[in-house]
C-alpha cells in the first residue's frame, strides 16, 4: 500500500485500541460472521489475494470461515450484485464486495431495479438484507475509472441506505449495523482512509444508521462533509482556530437516512454552511444537504452556503491535475474566511 494520504496521530481513549480503518472493517466482518452463520462475504479477490482483499479488508476471513462463506467470484459485477440480492431474499445475509465503486456501473440493474424495489413492489412481504461494499475516492493516481465518488447515485434511489464512514470507529460500528439491517445498504469506504489509525472501542460496538457525528465543535461556521473531507476540514479548523475562527465539523456518516436535525441545529448556531465532498459538484449530495438546510432554516443563514466539491471533470492521472480536481484543505480555509468576513 502506498503512503497514506491522511495522517493522524492515534489518540488513546479508555476502553479502546488503535486500529486502522481496514482493520476495523475486518473486525466488523469477523465478529458478524461469528455471530450469525447466515452472513457470508463474496467478491473479486476477497479470499486468496494476499490473504483477503486488495486493501486487506477481508484478510484472514477465509482461514477462519472457509471458502464457502468467503467466496472469491469471477469478474462478473452484475452477477455478484444479483446473486447477493437473490440470496438475501432467500434467507442469507450477504456482504458483496465491489473492488472499486466505479465497477458498480456494471451492477446497477440488480442494485437499483431489484434490491431497492423488491420490498416495496412486493407489498412489504420480502426483506433484502444485503450489504454492497465498495471503496471510492481519488488521491492515489488511479485516474478516471478507479477514483470516482458515486454516493449520490445510490442516495438518489428510494429503498437503498447509503453509508460513508470517515474513521476506524465509525467504519466498524456502521458496518455492523449495516450487516444487521434488513434493507439493502450501500457501504462506501474511501481508499485513502484504509491506513488511517484511530481508537476503536473494545467489545460489542455499533453505531446506528442515520446519526451524524460532530467531529469538532465550533460557533462561527458549519462544515458538513464526508470521507477525506472530514479530515481536511479538521485540519482546516486548526488553521482557522489560530485566527479566532471556530469551525464546527459535522460528519453525517450515513447519507440515507440522513441526520438533518444535527446539521440544521449546527447551522442555527453558526449561521454559515460549507459542504464538501470529492464527488462531482453537479447533483452531488452537497446540493441536497444545502437544499434541505435552506428549506428548514433559511432564516438562520447569514450568508449563502458554499459547496466545495470535485470539479465536474473525469479524475485526471497527473498528480497536480488530480489535486486540482479535488477540494483541498486550503479551499476550506479560504471559503470559511470568506463566509465569516
Amino acid at each position, binding site marked *: 500500500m502506498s503512503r497514506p494520504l491522511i495522517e493522524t496521530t492515534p489518540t488513546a481513549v479508555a476502553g479502546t485500541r488503535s486500529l486502522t480503518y481496514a482493520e476495523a472493517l475486518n473486525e466488523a466482518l469477523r465478529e458478524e460472521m461469528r455471530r450469525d452463520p447466515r452472513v457470508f462475504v463474496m467478491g473479486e479477490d476477497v479470499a486468496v489475494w494476499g490473504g483477503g482483499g486488495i486493501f486487506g479488508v477481508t484478510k484472514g476471513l477465509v482461514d477462519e470461515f472457509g471458502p464457502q462463506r468467503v467466496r472469491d467470484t469471477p469478474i462478473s459485477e452484475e452477477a455478484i450484485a444479483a446473486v447477493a440480492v437473490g440470496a438475501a431474499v432467500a434467507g442469507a445475509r450477504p456482504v458483496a464486495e465491489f473492488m472499486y465503486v466505479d465497477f458498480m456501473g456494471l451492477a446497477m440493474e440488480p442494485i437499483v431495479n431489484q434490491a431497492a424495489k423488491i420490498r416495496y413492489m412486493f407489498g412489504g412481504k420480502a426483506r433484502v438484507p444485503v450489504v454492497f461494499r465498495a471503496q471510492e475516492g481519488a488521491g492515489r493516481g488511479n485516474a478516471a475509472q478507479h477514483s470516482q465518488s458515486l454516493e449520490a447515485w445510490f442516495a438518489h434511489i428510494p429503498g437503498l441506505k447509503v453509508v460513508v464512514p470517515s474513521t476506524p470507529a465509525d467504519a466498524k460500528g456502521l458496518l455492523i449495523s449495516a450487516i444487521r439491517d434488513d*434493507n439493502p445498504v450501500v457501504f462506501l469506504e474511501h481508499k485513502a482512509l484504509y491506513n488511517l489509525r484511530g481508537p476503536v472501542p473494545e467489545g460489542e460496538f455499533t453505531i446506528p444508521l442515520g446519526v451524524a457525528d460532530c467531529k469538532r465543535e465550533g460557533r462561527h461556521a458549519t462544515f458538513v462533509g464526508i470521507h477525506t473531507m472530514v479530515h481536511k476540514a479538521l485540519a482546516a479548523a486548526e488553521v482557522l482556530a489560530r485566527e479566532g475562527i471556530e469551525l464546527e465539523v459535522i460528519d453525517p456518516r450515513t447519507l440515507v437516512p440522513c441526520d438533518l436535525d444535527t446539521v440544521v441545529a449546527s447551522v442555527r448556531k453558526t449561521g454559515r454552511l460549507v459542504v464538501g465532498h470529492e464527488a462531482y459538484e453537479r447533483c452531488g449530495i452537497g446540493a441536497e444537504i444545502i437544499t434541505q438546510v435552506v428549506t428548514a432554516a433559511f432564516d438562520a443563514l447569514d450568508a449563502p452556503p458554499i459547496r466545495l466539491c470535485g470539479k465536474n471533470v473525469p479524475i485526471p492521472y497527473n498528480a497536480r491535475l488530480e489535486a486540482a480536481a479535488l477540494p483541498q484543505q486550503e479551499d476550506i480555509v479560504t471559503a470559511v474566511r470568506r463566509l465569516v468576513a
Partner: protein
Amino acid sequence: MAIEIPAALTPERLRGMLRTMLTIRQFDQRALELYREGVMRGSTHPYIGMEAVAVGACAALDPADRITSTHRGHGHCLAKGGDPRLMMAELLGKATGYCKGKGGSMHIADVEAGILGANGIVGGGIGLAAGAALAAQLAGRDDVTVCFFGDGALNQGILHESANLAAIWKLPVVFVCENNQYAMSARADKFTSVPDPTVRAIAYGFPGVSCDGMDVLAVYRAVAAAAARARAGGGPSLVVCATYRYFGHHVGDPLNYRDKAEVDAWRQRDPIERFEQTLIGRGILAAVDIERLRGEVAGEIESAVAFAKASPEPEMTALMEDVYA
C-alpha cells in the same frame, strides 16, 4: 405411439396439472378482457399458449423449491400455487392483492410460497435465481430454484455471468428458457447467434436439453431430471422449451412481425387440448370430467374477479410504506 406417463404423476396429480393449465388460460383471458375494458392499468403480458411450460416445470418441484419469473409471469405464479384471487386483486391495484396494489402484473410475488417475483426487467430474475440457489446451498438445504426466462433474455449479459457462476459453484438451479419465438418483434432465430439455444450450455459445461414446450409431460420430464441433478449436488442445467405466445407481447402489439398462418400452425398444437386428449386416451379423465373441470375453473376465475372488484383501494398512507423494512 403410446404416450408414456411418468410414474410419479398419479391420476390425481395429472388432473391437478390440467386444472392449473385451464386456470392459467382462463385467468389471462379474463385479464385481457379487464385490460381492454380499462379496468387494468399499465400492461398485461398473456401467458396463453405457453401453459405447458409453467405447469410441467412446477409439477417437478417440491413446495420448498423456488422459482423466479418474468414480465409474462401469471402462469408461473399460478403453477407454483399462487392464489388467483390475490393475483386478480393485484392486477386491479387493490389493497388485498399480493403486493397491496403496489406491484401490479409485473411484480406479483409470494416469497413465502417460493415465488420470488415476476420481473419487469428482461433477465432480471436470472441472477436472483442463482442467488436463491446459493442461499440453499449455504444453509445445507436441498431445495432447488427454477429460473424462468424468455428467448429475449438469452442475450442479456446476466445470463452469461450467472450461468458461469452457477456452474463453478454447482448451484442447485434449473435455467428454463421459454422460447416463445419472439422478444417483442425480435425473432429468436434471427437475434440469437445459434439456431438452437441449448448449445449455449456446452460453453458452461452443464447439460442443455430442448423439449417440446407445447407438451406438459415433456417439460415435466426434462425439468424433473434437471431438478433431481441439482438436488443431488450436480449443479445447474438448461432446459429450452419451444413454445409460442398466441397473443401479442401485450395488448396494443401491432403484430406486424408474424403471419396468421404461423399462429394457426402453433395453435394446432395447443398444449391444453393435447393434454386433454392424452388423459382421455389413457382413461384418466372423460370428456365430461374435463367439461366439469372447465366449469369449476371458470367459477373460480369469476370469483377472483368479483373478489378483486369488491376489494378496497389501498389507503393513501400505503404510498410511503414498505420502502424500508
